[in-house]
């Protein structure tokens, strides 16, 4: 039984994603901060997207860069880590859209044997979030197909 992923539009420029993992916070943090682990889940197999490279320098002021296969040329997503607090907090920028990119804050809270992960995405303006919506229009339907497969 998979844990539920909850999404909330907190305000006109904020999104919040919440998910519980059945593991201590240090393991969730590890999976979020080591490139060889990150590349196993950030681009789900069901998306059909190929991750060409994944570089992460996880420390305050360090950068990251993910490159995906795309036509006519590969697409890069990159930014900087503004705050790295082991096992509890990670803050990073998303700079590929210039000034319109969101600020992402991951907070991990341990509750017994589980960890609650809260990802807060803050866009610089309502217009920036509006523009970002478009990128989800291209999300492959296969996400839904996978859900159907698992549910069946």
């Amino acid at each position, binding site marked *: 039984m*998979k*844990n539920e*992923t*909850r*999404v*909330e*539009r*907190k*305000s*006109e420029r904020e*999104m919040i*994603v919440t*998910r519980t*993992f*059945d*593991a201590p916070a240090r*393991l*969730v943090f*590890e*999976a979020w901060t080591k490139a060889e*682990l990150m590349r*196993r*889940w*950030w681009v*789900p*197999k*069901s*998306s059909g997207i190929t991750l060409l490279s994944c570089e992460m320098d996880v420390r305050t002021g360090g950068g990251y860069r993910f490159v995906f296969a795309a036509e006519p040329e590969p697409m890069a997503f990159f930014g900087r880590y503004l705050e790295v607090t082991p096992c509890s907090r990670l803050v990073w920028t998303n700079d590929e859209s210039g000034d319109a990119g969101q600020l992402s804050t991951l907070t991990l809270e341990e509750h017994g044997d589980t960890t609650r*992960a809260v*990802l807060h995405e803050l866009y610089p303006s*309502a217009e920036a979030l*509006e523009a970002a*919506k478009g990128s*989800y*229009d291209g*999300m492959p339907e296969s*996400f*839904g197909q*996978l*859900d159907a497969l698992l549910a069946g």
Partner: protein
Amino acid sequence: MVQLSRTAQLDAAFAALADATRRGVLEQLGRADASITDLAARFDMTLTGMKKHVGVLEAAGLVATAKVGRVRTCRLGPRQLDEVTAWIDRYRRMWSARFDELDQVIEDLKQQEKARSR
């Protein structure tokens, strides 16, 4: 009712959906049409309070109301709701798919820890 541009209406819809009571009202109307009096009673709220919530939902195009005699009946404005939830749904699916794979990565880490501590 104030007419809003398409984008402004979507924004209004998101703002309308940010409130738990209003989401509850939409769920309720998804099951059956209801008068404002019915809704106020169901959500344990004053008539004035419920009128305000329905007003916000109506301005956002999420709810349509019609007055029959002395009773104002509310029903869903389904097209708008679909537009709003379609985007959120794709966003949620993306994260859900990622996190379901993250579960597997974490499970592997747990197994490795167990093996090391043996």
